[in-house]
């Protein structure tokens, strides 16, 4: 019987706010519940959403009252979260605290407090950061602070892993690359028929209606229209693509500060009949927009994972995207055409994609089934569970990290100190923080000591015995062992 855990997901970003991190947390938690774990989510209070809520599947959400600073990231007060966090953790008997998103100060605080309380911590990074500008340097220092004493880190792509390892000076072995996933059922192509489960022959969906030379090819773009989403590239490329290829048109969904540029481009080039701007759409409508097209164009300049291109491929769209960040890792080459983030190359790549669509060389009708087998939240939950097992000692350290911990002083003490079961001692933690920098190290140590003192004070004032333990939502039974991977 594999162990089950009580897990607290902590992030500033959660429903009702839409977004990638939010749905990641929701899907992962829900699948972890399916695997028999208990999962609660801690986030800050949103407008009209306070207190404790239950979501589908018995998912409990704590909306902690917190001052929201900017774009729903809460104000970073290093210690003020501790009392209520401790209360929640004790009420729910949490074993593992899992923080999400590097810009969420709630997550970093939770990791710090959880370590003070002697809990296991995991952190998931969803974004890429540079090293050059002042804001990044500051953010990286803070990340280093919070990740100095974390048990394991999950990144959504290998590029993201490299970035996080560099930013926080981590041992690469304590960083796992576990991708996002999509709910393939929500992103079916138009007229898609489920393969009958009883037929043993490989499923071949009927080939899509072949495109004639004069049929209209629709290129879909769904993104927030920001600079870093490559809207400038898009604005420059659209007139050239449309000029090179008659019988093509664009559908652009999304909103942002660069929308005005696009509109200006449309007016300047008189393309109103060939470029359709839908404005902002909700996540539920994404599929309905996608299935109207044949090609999905993604001109982003930086992307940790790029869930949207997986969604597009799942809808049976041929994907044209820029070769940046983690995007090259996400889809196999027969589903994508890669371009450099240059106007010329983007035009060329789109031209190639249109040509091969016209030649009917791309079996887009097979994409859905393939994507479904590549990415699923069940798989993500399974792999995350392995991380939980590894840090809580259910898998032996040697097995998890792949080296012999008993090797004595000769082996990797850095890793062992971080992952080892015995490493909650304050002095060990201080050692880890001290290495963060000449000044920062001492400052961080001070923070940790203060945090520890607050912890002691809380133990005195609000003793553990006085805190009610809340009854659990009935747990799901783990599925049959044959399908179980643990």
């Amino acid at each position, binding site marked *: 019987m594999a162990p089950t855990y009580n897990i607290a997901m902590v992030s500033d970003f959660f429903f009702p706010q839409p977004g990638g991190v939010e749905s990641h947390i929701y899907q992962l938690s829900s699948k972890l519940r399916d695997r028999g774990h208990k999962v609660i989510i801690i986030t800050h209070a949103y407008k009209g959403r306070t207190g404790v809520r239950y979501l589908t599947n018995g998912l409990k959400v704590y909306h902690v009252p917190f001052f929201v600073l900017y774009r729903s990231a809460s104000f970073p007060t290093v210690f003020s979260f501790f009392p209520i966090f401790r209360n929640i953790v004790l009420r729910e008997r949490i074993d593992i605290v899992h923080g999400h998103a590097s810009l969420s100060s709630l997550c970093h605080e939770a990791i710090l407090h959880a370590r003070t309380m002697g809990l296991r911590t995991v952190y998931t990074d969803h974004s890429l950061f*540079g090293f*050059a500008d002042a804001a990044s340097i500051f953010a990286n220092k803070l990340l280093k602070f919070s990740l100095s004493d974390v048990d394991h880190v*999950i990144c959504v*792509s290998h*590029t*993201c892993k*490299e*970035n996080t*390892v*560099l930013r926080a*000076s981590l*041992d*690469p*072995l304590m*960083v*796992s*690359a576990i991708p996002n996933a999509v709910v393939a059922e929500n992103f079916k192509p138009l007229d898609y028929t489920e393969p009958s489960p009883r037929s043993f022959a*490989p499923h071949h969906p009927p080939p899509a209606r072949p495109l004639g030379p004069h049929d209209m090819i629709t290129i879909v773009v769904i993104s927030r229209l920001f600079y*870093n989403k*490559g809207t400038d*590239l898009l604005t*420059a490329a659209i007139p050239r693509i449309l*000029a090179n290829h008659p019988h093509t048109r664009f559908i652009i969904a999304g909103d942002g500060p660069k929308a005005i540029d696009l509109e*200006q481009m449309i007016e300047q080039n008189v393309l109103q009949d060939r470029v359709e701007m839908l404005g902002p759409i909700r996540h539920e409508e994404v599929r309905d927009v996608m299935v109207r097209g044949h090609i999905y164009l993604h001109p982003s*300049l*930086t992307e940790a994972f790029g869930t949207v291109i997986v969604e597009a491929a799942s809808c049976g769209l041929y994907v044209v995207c820029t070769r*940046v*960040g983690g995007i090259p*890792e996400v*889809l*196999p080459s*027969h589903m994508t055409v890669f371009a450099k*983030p*240059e*106007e*010329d190359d983007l035009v060329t790549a789109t031209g*190639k994609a249109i040509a*091969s669509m016209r030649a009917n*060389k791309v079996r887009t009708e*097979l994409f859905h089934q*393939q994507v479904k*087998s*590549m*990415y699923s939240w069940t*798989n993500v939950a399974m*792999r995350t569970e*392995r*991380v939980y097992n590894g840090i809580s000692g259910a898998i032996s350290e*040697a*097995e*998890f990290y*792949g*080296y*012999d911990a008993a*090797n004595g002083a*000769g*082996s*990797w003490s850095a*890793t062992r100190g971080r992952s080892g079961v015995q490493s909650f001692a304050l002095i060990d933690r201080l050692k880890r923080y001290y290495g963060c920098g000449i000044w920062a190290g001492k400052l961080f140590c001070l923070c940790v000591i203060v945090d520890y003192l607050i912890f002691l004070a809380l133990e005195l004032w609000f003793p553990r015995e006085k805190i009610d333990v809340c009854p659990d939502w009935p747990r799901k039974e783990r599925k049959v062992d044959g399908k179980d*991977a643990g």
Partner: protein
Amino acid sequence: MAPPSGLHQSAIPSDFETPFPPLVRSSTVPAGLKSHRADPSHLAPEDAYTPYSPPRRSGTFDSTGTASGTESRAGRARHKDASRSRSRRRKRFQKLLWVKQSYPDNYTDQATFLENLQRNPRVRPYDFWPLVADSTVIVQHVCSVIIFVVCFVGIFQERVSPVSVVGWSSFATFLGWLLWDWWVTNEAPGGWEDDDVRARMIRDGRAYREYRPPRRQDSSGLGSPMLNASTVSISSVSNFPSAASSTTNLLQDHSVPLQRPLHPPGTNTSGGLLAPTQVHSRSASSINTIATQASGAASPTTTAGTAANLIAAGTTAFGGPGTTGFSPATRNRLSTIKSAVLIYFTLLGLSPILKSLTRSTSSDSIWAMSFWLLAINVFFFDYSGSSWSGGLGGAASGGGGGGGPGAHGKQMPVASMSTNAALMASTVLASRLPSTGQVFSLTLFSIEVFGLFPVFRQYARHRSWRYHVVLTVLLVLGAGAGVGMILGDERGWPWKKGLLGMVVGCLIAALAMGGCSWWLIGLQKYKNEIYGPWDPARPIIISRRHWDDD
């Protein structure tokens, strides 16, 4: 392009829910230790946790590695031997997410991990002499601040007559203006010494005007320069009325960015002429500040307005070359003179108010305050001088009201803060002086030193390197002599002290310029820029290629 999907079907495992292969010891340890990465500039995984390990000299591991990593590498090497036979059977690790890997998630592949990392790819090593040459700009400014302070001390101790100070400086300003005017009129028809600069400028101006046109006919980004040159001349004629209009609304600091969109081609194509506009408007606004500070009773708007008027008129005059016709140039000169007279009398009227401005404040606070204000002036001064020397086009587009890259736009408030601080310092200092005449002299002097002189210096530097050097030497000598004379007591012969001061000043300047340059070059070895696939890509867009370059 699109291979038959059957091929790929095999790559996608159908047995999706299968557990991981049994994890064995060292399954996560990189197997391929014969490193493919001969490039020592790449980081290896162990670089992440051995904080100060130097870049690896060779691509291969051996157990006699550097001291910090010896044990761990030796440990790995042992594992390598143990697991080699096992790892052979596996598929190679691929840095892909859609592939079903036969490795655990935290596996770190030695061959591909951080393979795209670049360290210091764009570092340009500094050379000593160019660095020293560049530092002359700072030396010049520091020296002019010192000279200002020396003059104040001289006036304050009543060793120098304020009238002589302001007389000589006004004479020098007048000479400078004449010289400027002469240069500018010489330059106007034949234009820039540098055809390259001109071409770039034209391109910039064009890029600004044509926002994002369809780029089919000239996708090379270099249109016919002649055609654009004609636009240039037209628009530069149009520069005049716009500059004149700027005189009216220089009252707020915002007016410069506000008015600019009205005549973007003019500002762009008249190139460097924009910079005086900025500088003058800066000083105008700062005079505005003074006026509002000073005017407890007096009407601030008129005084500030006239002050701004002078400065802006100066702009118009300095902006003259763009206006090729004869009469506008003369008119500009006339209006400059008119404004100069106006500001002269305004200051004269304002001096009694300034004199009693800080009577209730103790002198200590005034010294401390003026020190900090002058320090702010020195630290936030716009030394780039890009408007004249290197990036003429860049400055032109930057001045074009947000038309260029944002960096130029951001510099503006900082630079105006510098001038503001200096003028405020001079105001509070002047308020310590006992007589109205002294106050008037010092304020006028400060406007000349902090408002007009930097413009002249920049222009001289742009104009000829020789002028620049001569000016630097003169300033250093002057500052040294001044400090020497001030420090020396009054009894002795001041010229001897002055000479000594000159020598010491030259020594200090040379030492500072050389020493700081050498230090900066020495610091370069700590430079560690990291670039990789996680950095936002810099899009290359043809229609705006030259924007992204600078």
